[in-house]
């Protein structure tokens, strides 16, 4: 049935429109931190809130791209991408915690506050190395990647596909959530990490830091988009789409389906981890609720709303659903879950190709 999705390669004209649209989005977004520096009276002034919210959405958009790469192109619906996102966030969170140093409430030279509180004597072994930013950034990608490698290998090897894989990944993020809620895991338990002070020598929560993080996120989004576009248009991408549409046929044709799926799943997890690493310094907190299965599935619906199988759709979905969420949760918070649930139903029943599908109706 997934054959009803749009053709992977849009016509030349459509490709042109796509590039222009993308360029437009990036330019508008890139202007935001600049407009933030205008005087408050100015008509074009953009508030701190808008900048930080948009920065957050950009990291969501990277997550959406990651999900779309696996689901839209290879047919792997992961309901555990929130876990990769959160792991990336935790990795950078550990770095930020180490940077607090003696400025914590308890003033311990190396141990973060929660460890002093829990009576730790020394830093657990897995906390070493996180005082270096490059190491933390590497871990933000390597840990989700490794987890995806293991889970993916076990699952794809025994041909766990479709909903079974979805439920398996959901169980994975659920188990991680339970584990991270424990105090003796050494990740701050219930409260997670917060009260960050600085990153790369710049104090957080200043307009400068916001702008830097914003541009870093935007650059990462652009880079990820370029990477995903490259992957999906390559021969590898064609094989992935073929796997999505008929896995056994591809296998019978002699392709190594397991390896292809594993590659795209790990790449997707690394991107999600990177998104999480950019997300945490911007929101200033990471805790185990980021692992909750609801978060992962919400991210999946961004992609579905935007239109899966198109990279632009993932971005469109992430921005539009989150814009709706931000607006609705301030205007009528009790209605948000109805709206989100309604989106799930409406998109699957009425808009299988998402918003992009609406825009491209005439192209077929």
């Amino acid at each position, binding site marked *: 049935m997934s054959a009803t999705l749009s053709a992977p390669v849009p016509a030349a004209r459509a490709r042109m429109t796509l590039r222009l649209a993308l360029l437009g989005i990036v330019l508008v977004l890139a202007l935001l931190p600049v407009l933030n520096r205008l005087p408050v009276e100015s008509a074009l002034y953009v508030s701190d809130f808008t900048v930080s919210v948009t920065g957050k959405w950009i990291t969501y958009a990277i997550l959406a791209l990651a999900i779309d790469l696996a689901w839209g192109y290879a047919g792997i619906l992961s309901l555990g991408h929130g876990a990769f996102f959160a792991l990336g966030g935790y990795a950078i969170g550990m770095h930020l915690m180490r940077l607090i140093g003696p400025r914590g409430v308890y003033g311990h030279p190396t141990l973060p506050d929660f460890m002093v509180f829990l009576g730790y004597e020394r830093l657990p072994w897995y906390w070493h190395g996180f005082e270096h930013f490059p190491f933390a950034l590497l871990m933000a990608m390597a840990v989700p990647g490794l987890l995806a490698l293991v889970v993916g290998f*076990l699952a794809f090897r025994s041909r*766990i596909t479709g909903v079974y894989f979805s439920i398996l990944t959901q169980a994975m993020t659920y*188990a991680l959530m339970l*584990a991270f809620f*424990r105090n003796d895991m050494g990740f701050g338990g219930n409260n997670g990490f917060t009260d960050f002070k600085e990153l790369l020598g710049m104090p957080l929560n200043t307009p400068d830091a916001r702008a830097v993080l914003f541009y870093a996120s935007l650059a990462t989004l652009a880079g990820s988009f370029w990477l995903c576009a490259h992957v999906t248009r390559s021969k590898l991408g064609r094989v992935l789409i073929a796997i999505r549409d008929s896995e056994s046929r591809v296998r019978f044709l002699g392709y190594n389906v397991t390896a292809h799926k594993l590659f795209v799943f790990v790449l997707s997890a690394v991107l999600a981890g990177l998104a999480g690493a950019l997300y945490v310094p911007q929101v200033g907190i990471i805790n185990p609720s980021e692992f909750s299965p609801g978060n992962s599935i919400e991210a999946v619906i961004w992609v579905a709303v935007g239109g899966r199988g198109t990279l632009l759709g993932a971005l469109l979905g992430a921005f539009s659903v989150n814009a709706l969420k931000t607006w609705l949760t301030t205007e009528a918070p009790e209605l948000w879950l109805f709206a*989100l*649930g*309604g989106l*799930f*139903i409406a998109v699957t029943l009425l808009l299988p190709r998402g918003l992009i599908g609406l825009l491209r109706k005439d192209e077929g």
Partner: protein
Amino acid sequence: MKRHLPGLLLLLLLALPAQAQEDFAAAVSALSGGFAQKAEAVERLGASGDPRALPVLRTLADGRLLMRPDGSVLLPTENGAVDAATGAPADAAGAEPVRINNRVRAALRGALGRLSIVSTDPAERLAAAEAVFRSRSAENIPLLETAIARETDPAVRAQMELALAASRLVAADEDAKRAAIVQLGRAGTAEARALLLEARRDSPVLAAEVDTAVAVIDRQLALKRAAATLFQGLSLGSVLLLAALGLAVTFGVMGVINMAHGEFVMLGAYTTFVVQEICRPVPWLLPWSLPLSVPAAFLVAALAGVLLERGLIRHLYGRPLETLLMTFGVGMILQQAVRLTFGAQNREVLSPAWMQGTLMLPGDIAVTQNRLWIIIFGLLVLGLVVAAIRYTRFGLEMRAVTQNRRIAATMGIRTGQVDALTFAFGSGVAGMAGVALSQIDNVSPNLGTGYIIDSFMVVVFGGVGSLAGTLVGALSLGVVNKVLEPYAGAVLAKVAVLVALMLFIQRRPRGLFAQKGRAAEA
């Protein structure tokens, strides 16, 4: 009853040996003496273990015991008084209350505590025996011996004998100590074990005996722990079974993935709450609200199931991933709707009296009644589902449609109708699970989310499409969880089970009870 009291006392009196009777009469008449005499008499009565002393001392403590100028002590009754020493009716004219001071009061407290071991209420006797067991002193030995000779209730008697053994352990007599050690060893409780270890410290001569007895206790305790773990595991397993059974029908048999399944369980729990509130004004109906909730919850959840299937899921057949997302959205809406209707806080569902309390199985294994009922209920629901699928026309059509929809249709089966009914049936079973869960879990809007993943695990582990697999899967996951818990803690046990399950699927991708033949190819 009160009217016959003197007669009863008289009878008791006649049955007692003459010596005891004389001692009793002497002690009672001493109650009319000075405070020092009174206190001494109270202590003597307390140590006598004589059941007749209990009402006398209680009345004395209440300040209602009367005394005539001639020194005889009277026990007031409803219409007059009796002689406390003989039980014969007596004239209360001119009598005044027996006065007591703090010293007598202190003596009374001690005496009443020991005497409650001969009370007429078995529960009071049991409590007294337990208190003596804990306080253990050689002084209690004669009292316990008298009490044991008179005891008729086997449970109370056993507890008294334990108390006697514990008291003998601190007495001087070596042989009695040895016998006591063996007896305590057989008792097999942690308390007895602590007593024995203490005795070992105090008299090293008995070390060998104590060690054997402790080893006996340890074996018994280990066995009991294993039995308790097994029961807890079965209990958790039955909860998983209930939650997963509906899923075994909609997902296992129909192949429809319904992420709102947990919310149907939640609807069942709220139906239980609503039925209870309806029954509340009618006192005789209230204890029956829970049984009444079972069909009500089935109908509510089944109705929700029909609406979901006919209205939405039907349009997505053959697209499982879309179905998954769509039903997740439905679950969200249901949760939020319930939250807005009933509030976010937990709703309280009462347990009827016949489901409360604990039951002692042979071998002193304490079993909470409501857990036991849930195990029974889980098996009943399983029986119902199996019977419906195997032995009814509807079940036959359901199997026909799931095996080969088009051929079933050509045979004249209305496949659409069967789909709707099957889905309604599975959803209804989820609703019934909600009734059971309302007894052990918080009835809150997110009740279902905690069970949905576990339920899918059970169905996948057991083998999709196999009810026997669901049963075995649920029970074994429950037991494994509870066995791991003491070593790894509840959360890590869960994580370990999830990981083990993933590895298990490596070996047997189609679950424990894999379907064979054509049905397996679907």
